[in-house]
C-alpha cells in the first residue's frame, strides 16, 4: 500500500474509529509504507537478496493529559479496531503526562521532490547488473569484495483529528562496496546515498573501493599522536553527526550539554556553516508531529546560532518550536581535494571511521577507529598507506581547528546530508589498531 489517497484514507478511517470509540479523544496517525529491495554480496558473489513490503502505522491518542501511542503493521479491519482499542485502553490507564502537546492542526507544506520513478523501477536484474559493474574493477585486480545495495520506494503520511493531512512520497538507495586484497593487508571502501537512479553510480563506487584497497596494501606503522588530518566526507560526517545530535535546547538549558550557555558564541571554525533546508537537503519537509520544516542555520561561520526546540520546551520557555530535523548540510568550501592536501608537511588522510561512541558528553569527545583507507600525507601528497588508529577526540576541538573545506560535497550515510571533506589539525590518534 504505497498510493497516497489509499494511505490517507486509511489514516482518516483510523481517526474516525478513535472518535467513535471515545468522542473526547484527540488523535494522530502516521504511516510509513515502503517496498524495500536489497541485495548483499561478499567474497565476490551475491549472498542474500530479499524484497519486503514494510508498513508501519502509528496511532497516538490523547485524553486530556493522558496519552499513549501504539504501532502496528496490520491493516485489516479487526487489527485496526484492536489497535484503536489498545491505544485508548493504555491512555485511559495512563497517569497524566505533562509533556503531552495538543495534536497539530492543518498546515501548508510544499511537497519535496524526493521520488524518482527510474529508481523505483530498478528491479532484481537491474540491481544484479549494477553490482556486477561495481565488482568489475576488483575482479580485474584479484580483490575480494563485499557490499550492500538497498532500494526503497515509499510514502509517509500524517493525519490528525485537528485536521492535519500530509503526505510525502520518496525513493531512496544506499550502495557501498568494501574491497580487500587477497593477502589481507589492504582494504578500501566507497559508498553513496541517493534518491535518484541517475546518481546511483555503481561503477564509480566499485572503482574507488578497488583503488583504495590496492593503495592501502602493506601499510606501515605510524606513531600515535596529534596530526593534521584530511577527513573525507564520510569521515567528516561522523563528527557532524555528533554535532547535529547535540543541538538540543532543552538539554542545554538543563546544563547537560556542551552547548549550555553557548548560543551566540563562536565555537567552530569560521569556515563552518551547518544548515537544514528541505530545498537543498533531500529531506521530508515535515517532522513526525507535522511541524513544517523551514530553512534553519544552526552554525553560521562558526557561531552557534540556534538549537532545536521541541513543542513542549517551546511552551515551557516561551520559545518558537523548530521542528525535528534529520537532514543537514555543511556549506562547501573553495578547495579542491588536491588543495586540501597542499601545505601539509606530514598528516593523515582518513576515508572513514568505525564504531564511534561518545566518551565525554561535556566536551563532545568521541572514540572511533579509522578504516578502509588510511594514508600518510607528506609534503602535500598522499604517499604511503598506514595502519589504522583509534581516535579519542573532542568533536568541537576538531571542528574549531578546520582551516579548509572541499568545494565538492557527498551524500554518505543519508541522502538528506551533504558534506564536504575537511582539513583540521592536532587531531588525536590515541593508539594503533592492527585491523585491516
Amino acid at each position: 500500500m504505497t498510493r497516497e489517497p489509499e494511505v490517507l484514507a486509511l489514516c482518516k478511517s483510523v481517526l474516525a474509529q478513535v472518535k467513535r470509540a471515545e468522542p473526547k479523544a484527540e488523535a494522530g496517525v502516521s504511516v510509513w509504507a515502503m517496498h524495500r529491495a536489497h541485495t548483499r554480496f561478499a567474497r565476490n558473489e551475491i549472498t542474500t537478496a530479499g524484497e519486503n513490503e514494510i508498513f508501519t502505522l502509528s496511532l497516538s491518542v490523547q485524553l486530556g493529559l493522558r496519552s499513549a501511542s501504539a504501532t502496528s503493521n496490520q491493516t485489516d479491519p479487526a487489527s485496526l479496531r484492536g489497535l484503536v482499542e489498545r491505544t485508548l485502553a493504555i491512555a485511559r490507564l495512563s497517569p497524566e503526562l505533562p509533556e503531552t502537546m495538543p495534536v497539530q492542526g492543518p498546515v501548508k507544506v510544499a511537497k519535496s521532490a524526493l521520488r524518482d520513478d527510474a529508481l523505483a523501477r530498478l528491479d532484481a536484474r537491474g540491481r544484479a547488473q549494477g553490482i556486477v559493474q561495481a565488482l568489475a574493477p576488483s575482479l580485474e585486480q584479484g580483490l575480494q569484495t563485499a557490499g550492500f545495495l538497498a532500494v526503497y520506494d515509499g510514502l509517509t503520511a500524517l493525519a490528525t483529528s485537528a485536521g492535519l493531512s500530509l503526505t510525502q512520497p520518496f525513493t531512496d538507495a544506499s550502495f557501498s562496496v568494501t574491497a580487500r586484497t587477497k593477502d589481507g593487508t589492504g582494504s578500501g571502501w566507497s559508498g553513496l546515498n541517493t534518491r535518484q537512479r541517475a546518481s546511483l553510480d555503481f561503477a564509480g563506487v566499485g572503482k574507488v573501493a578497488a583503488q583504495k584497497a590496492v593503495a592501502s596494501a602493506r601499510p606501515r606503522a605510524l606513531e600515535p599522536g596529534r596530526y593534521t588530518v584530511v577527513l573525507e566526507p564520510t569521515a567528516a560526517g561522523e563528527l557532524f553527526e555528533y554535532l547535529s545530535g547535540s543541538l538540543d535546547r532543552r538539554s542545554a538549558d538543563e546544563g547537560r550539554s556542551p552547548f549550555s550557555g553557548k548560543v551566540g558564541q563562536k565555537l567552530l571554525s569560521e569556515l563552518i556553516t551547518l544548515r537544514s533546508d528541505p530545498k537543498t537537503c533531500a529531506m521530508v519537509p515535515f517532522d513526525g508531529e507535522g511541524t513544517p520544516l523551514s530553512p534553519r542555520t544552526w552554525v553560521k561561520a562558526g557561531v552557534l546560532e540556534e538549537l532545536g526546540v521541541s513543542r513542549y520546551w517551546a511552551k515551557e520557555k516561551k520559545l518558537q518550536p523548530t521542528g525535528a530535523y534529520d537532514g543537514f548540510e555543511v556549506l562547501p568550501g573553495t578547495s579542491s581535494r588536491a588543495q586540501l592536501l597542499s601545505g601539509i608537511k606530514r598528516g593523515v588522510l582518513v576515508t572513514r571511521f568505525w564504531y564511534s561512541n561518545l566518551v565525554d558528553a561535556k566536551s563532545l569527545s568521541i572514540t572511533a577507529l579509522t578504516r578502509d583507507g588510511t594514508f600518510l600525507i607528506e609534503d602535500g601528497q598522499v604517499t604511503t598507506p598506514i595502519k589504522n588508529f583509534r581516535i579519542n577526540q573532542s568533536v568541537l576541538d576538531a571542528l574549531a581547528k578546520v582551516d579548509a573545506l572541499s568545494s565538492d560535497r557527498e551524500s554518505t550515510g543519508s541522502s538528506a546530508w551533504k558534506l564536504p571533506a575537511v582539513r583540521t589539525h592536532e587531531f588525536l590518534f590515541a593508539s594503533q589498531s592492527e585491523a585491516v
Partner: protein
Amino acid sequence: MKSLSRRSLLQATAALALAPALAHARGLVTDSTYLNVISAVLAAAKKAGASYADLRIHRRREEGVWVRDDHVEGLHDAERFGVGVRVLVDGAWGFASSPLVAVKEGQRLALVACELAKANAAVVTRKIALAPNPVHVDVWQTALFKDPFKIPVADKAELLLAVCSKLRAVKGINFCEASLSTRLEWKLFANSEGALIEQSQTRLGPDYSATAIHPTTGEFVSRGWDGQPAQAGWEHLENSHFLEDATQVAEDAVQKLNSPSVQPGKKDLILDASNLWLTIHESVGHPTELDRALGYEANMAGTSFATPDTLGTQYASPLVTLFADKTMPGGLATCGYDDDGVRTQRWNLVEKGKFVAYQTTRDQAGWLGEQASRGCSYAMDHDSVPFQRMPNVSLAPGEKDLSVQELIKATDDGIYVVGTGSWSIDHQRYNFQFTGQMFYEVKKGKLTRSLKDVGYQSNTPAFWKSCDLLGGPSSVRMGSAFDDGKGEPMQSNAVSHACPPARFRGVSIINSAAKKEGA
C-alpha cells in the same frame, strides 16, 4: 481452501523430503490459517524449483514506559506481524516477506523469493549446502511465573516514578530517567523437511540513571543502574533490587562527580561482572562468528582476527574458558531451536585459553568441514533474512570460589571497574576501549578512593592472555545486550553473557575526558 490438520500438513511437506519422524508436540498452534499458509508456501516454493524452503510467521510486541524526573514521559505499545519466506534454488538463497499472512500472499512470496534466488544463482560460484539436521516438531517458551504484559502499565509507571523519587531525594542529583521495556517474540517455523516449531520468548529490560551537575564548574556525570535485561517474567524485576538500589546509584553519581580524574598509565584491572560481560561480547562473542571470520560481514561489521587457521592457537591465558550457550536460563538469546530449526546447545569457543570452535549455522557448517550446525541462525522479525547471530557467550568461573573482594585483596596497585559506559572495538576485533560506571583505586589490597574519567584500552589477544585471576562460581553474574546490531539491512539481536569478576595485568588506562592526555 480446505483447512489442514497438522498430519496432513506434514504429509504435504514430506513430498519435499524424507518423511519426518513425528515428535509428540505439546500445544502446537492449530490455527488452520497458519497451517494453510505453511502448506501453500512450501508447495509453491517446490513448484517454482526450490530444493529447500522455510518460513517464519513472526510476531514481535514491545511495550515501553519512560519516566523523567517526576513525571511519565511516554507510553508506547508496538506490534509487528508477518511472514518471511526463504528458499534455496540452484544453491542460492532468495527471500521475500509481507505483513499479510494469507495463502495467496504466501504463494506470491514463494515465487518472488524463487525468482530472486534464480537471479542470484547466475552469479553464485559457491553453492549453498545445508548441514543435515533432524526434523523437529516441538514447542518452546520462556520459563516464567508472571507474564509482564499482564502487569498494568500504570503499575509499571508507578514503579518507575518510585525509583525516580528515590534518586531525586539524594542531595546533588539534578535529573533522573527510568524506563521499562517488555518484549515478546513469537514465531512459528516450518520447513520443507517437515519441521514445525512454535516458540515464544518474553524479555524484560529495566533501566534507570541519575545525573549530577557540579554547581560551579557545570561539569556533569550520570550513573546508570547495573541491573540487566533478562528473558524472564515479572519476577525478574521483583527479585532484582530495582527500587532498593536507587539511593546507592544516586549517591554514586554525586560521589563520581566529586572524584579525582584518573591519571593515565598501565594498571592492573579488576573488572566487575557488571563491566566484563560487555568486553566478552565485543572481544570474544563477535570475533568467533564464522561469517565474520570468512569475510561475509566485511562491508559493515568487519572481519575477525580469529581466522580458521588460528583454531587451536592461544586466544587467552590457560585460566580462561569461554563458552557459547543458547540454553542458559534467563539468557536473552536462549531458545529451543534456532531459525534453521536446529536444537540449541552449549559448546566451548575457547578452552583453557585455546580457540577451539566457531558459531555456525546450517549453511556455514560445511565451510569448516563440520557435520552439523551449532544452532546460531536468527532473524529479528519476519522482514529479516536469517543469518548467523551470537548466542549467549560466557566466561567460566575459576575453580576456587573467590569473591570480588578476594580479587581486590590480592591486588597491589590497580583499578576496580563497575558497570558499563562507552564501548568501541575495531573491525577485526583487536583494539578496544571501554569505560564504566564507577571506578575505584586499589592499593595494597584495599579500595582507597573513587575515580572518574577512567577508560581502558587494549588488544584482544594481549588482554585475554593477561587474565591471571578469576572469581569463583558464586561470583558469576549475567549481563545483557538488548539490541546488538549486525548485518545489512541491520538486524538487532538480544544476547546475554554470564561471567565472574576477573583480573587483567598491566592494562592501559586512559583519561576519557582528555583532562590528562595519555594512551
